[in-house]
């Protein structure tokens, strides 16, 4: 397993290098950020001065080389519009996105898996069919529309919850988070639901399909024949085998939720990294765009690694060292 992890990490460095090059050249090709950032009435001399200040007057390969040498010292560059280190800006906003993703995934798991199990055990009942119909809705509603509807219903019409923003953060064991304050939760719940709806539907469908697959298996029949209680059959024999593919998908989905919560964060004015990256793309703030993608790629690599390890724990048939990953 150690060999496996080391090999994985070496591959990830190559992936990071390629990503950074692609993004760097890609953003360079779109245009010159100074054309957007500079005051329109600036003279040509000032424009040239600003371009030089940001180091954009040098050829692109030289700019990339500067980026690489700084990277070697752990410096991912400074944002053009914030004038602060890009990595700091991303890490500053990461907790907001993480807590949103965390709550959304919890909702998806704790609502999706029980409903999926139920639908799997009662595929022809009214309840099972309703759950499946509901999951189709969760799949197909556009995220932004759904978010606006949540705001209209719970914030504007009922007035129960705030329409957006992050609210106060509480402190627990030295960590500041919305999860530790009531006001924080009241701000968190709507965007988390919005983010979770799609994932919940996914989990429901995945769980149900796997239950249907596992139920006719010999070991389930044998367990029942042995006279085990229904509860034990469900919780051990069915659930455990059902969960293996669900864990893989959830792992990848967690990465997706963190990296692409852009729509939800924009609608709910949630100050996370999704909102940061979309604003940065609008103004071609290259250091942030590059740093963001590096962080996200790194995150996906780590999540995949953890998923693979979890997989081997859940399914003893899988041996990591045997894989040519």
């Amino acid at each position: 397993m150690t060999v496996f992890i080391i090999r994985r990490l070496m591959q990830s460095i190559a992936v990071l290098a390629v990503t950074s090059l692609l993004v760097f050249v890609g953003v360079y090709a779109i245009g010159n950020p100074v054309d957007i950032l500079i005051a329109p009435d600036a003279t040509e001399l000032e424009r040239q001065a600003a371009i030089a200040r940001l180091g954009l007057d040098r050829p692109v390969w030289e700019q990339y080389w500067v980026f690489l040498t700084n990277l070697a010292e752990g410096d991912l560059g400074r944002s053009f519009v914030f004038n602060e280190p890009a990595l700091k800006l991303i890490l500053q906003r990461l907790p907001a996105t993480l807590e949103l993703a965390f709550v959304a995934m919890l909702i998806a798991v704790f609502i999706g898996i029980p409903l999926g199990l139920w639908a799997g055990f009662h595929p022809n009942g009214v309840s099972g069919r309703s759950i499946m119909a509901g999951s189709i809705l969760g799949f197909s509603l556009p995220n932004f529309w759904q978010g606006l509807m949540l705001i209209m219903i719970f914030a504007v019409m009922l007035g129960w919850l705030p329409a957006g923003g992050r609210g106060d953060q509480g402190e627990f064991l030295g960590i500041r988070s919305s999860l530790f304050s009531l006001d924080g939760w009241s701000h968190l719940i709507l965007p988390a639901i919005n983010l979770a709806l799609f994932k919940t539907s996914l989990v429901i469908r995945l769980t149900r399909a796997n239950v249907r697959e596992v139920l006719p298996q010999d070991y389930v029949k044998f367990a029942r024949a042995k006279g085990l209680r229904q509860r034990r059959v469900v919780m051990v024999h069915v659930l455990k085998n059902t969960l293996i593919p669900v864990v893989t998908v959830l792992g990848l989905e967690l990465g997706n939720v963190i990296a692409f919560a852009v729509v939800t964060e924009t609608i709910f004015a949630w100050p996370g990294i999704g909102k940061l990256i979309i604003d940065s793309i609008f103004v071609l703030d290259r250091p942030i765009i590059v740093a963001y993608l590096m962080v996200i790629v790194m995150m996906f690599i780590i999540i995949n690694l953890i998923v693979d390890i979890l997989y081997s724990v859940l399914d003893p048939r899988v041996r990591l060292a045997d894989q040519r990953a």
Partner: protein
Amino acid sequence: MFERLTILAAAMATAASLAVPPASAEDLTIALASEATSIDPHFHNTGNNNQIVFHIFDTLIKQGSSQELEPGLATSWGPIDDTTWEFHLREGVTFHDGSPFTADDVVFTLERAPNVPDSPSSFAGSINSITEVIVVDDYTIQFKTAAAYPLMPNDLSVVRIISRENGEGATTADYNSGAAAIGTGPYKLVEYVPGDRIVLTANDDYWDGRPEWDNVTFRPITSDPARVAALLAGDVDVIASVPTADIAQLADNPDVVLSQGVSNRVIYLHIDSAREVSPMVTAKDGSEIPNPFRDVRVRRAISMAIDRNAIVEQVMEGVAIPAGQLLPDGFFGVSENIEVPTYDPDGARALLEEAGYPDGFAVTIAGPNDRYINDEQIVQAIAQMLARVGIDASVETMPRSVYFGRATGGENGSEFSLMLVGWGSDTGEASSPLRALLATKNPELGWGSTNRGGYSSAEMDAALTEAMQTVDDTRRAELLARACEIAMGDVGLIPTHFQVNTWATRPGLAYIPRTDEYTLAMNVVRSE
């Protein structure tokens, strides 16, 4: 529409006059459509940031709601000879930390403002004319210029004064953290949380009286419907940039008060009137033709083919004012003799025929799709109007991150032939658009820096040059108006409309609209 605007303007005037001093302490939450990226008043010269630092830092000369110049940290100013301006500073003003404001802080500000490291857009342009600063005493300061320079008050009305004591060696990060964000302004910075909120609190010792609101929170809500929902839900008290599509509905809502005002931003078509061959103009069969826009008759025909009232009524839902020149009525240097061109498709066809294009030609109109209010729809509407006079007009719109780079272009000039752009006059007078958009390119003077159409008229340049050397306001206004008349007579560019901005507040409040489009807590008033 004019009627509605007038009524609103009247309502606003009433609102302002009814504004009562605060009966009780109150807080204000304002949702903005864009995010301020720094509290450093000199790092990035952009409206998003300027409107926030406006609260914390003062300028020597303040810009009022219509960008009229008012005494700020300077009580009076004037030229004492052709190349010297003298400013008398307000005595007894203190910074938020209690330290006194003196001429030395002005000197320090002028040293730092053009030299902020990594600044993507500095204030150098507003300071470059000063060749020497002379401190006469703590409250008198003189600025020397190389030649007569009438725009000194306008230029200095955008440069925010920082304190030497707190600002020496301070970086942008020190301003963002609040350590150096110590000004003389009506509000003090409490905290700046990037992407989430900026919290200000009243400066009890403000030289112009304690401000109306105790605590002010600015929140960026970039999504239009979400911003409106936040107001309807009562999360925020004021929202900026109400989307035009929602205005009619909100006007009928008793829980919302709308405030509207014309801005200093003209939306116009820049037109390639210089190059022999223009990149996006062809014959109708696609073959290359000489640039028809070099002929003033063709340019005038296009201007006549545009139904400005239709753009205002249909595309802008009534929330704009048709434009015939670079700034709305009432601004310094605007000509009273320029009418909004009348819509005349027959006249346009006749002019095209006279110019040798009886069958028209083909052109692609370029525009941004995320910069100005309804920009993409405006370009599409104009393309249809041109089609009616026989010009095959197609449309190409793109995000501003791509658009402005291409509009400026490289060595061969703009990549476009006919393009939709906007211009807001930060100085609040006509020389700003004349110098940038219409003057002949002259890097030394900094003229024509945004002249993407390549318009060049010796006569206009001469009038502008004379204006820029005339300190006498009345005479300069005449010269600027004359320059406007020449440029508009030549159709150097084609103005379509002035943007009108809309703010919405909860009942009991109103917003005094600003022509510079800023959203300031100082302009939120009580209205009952």
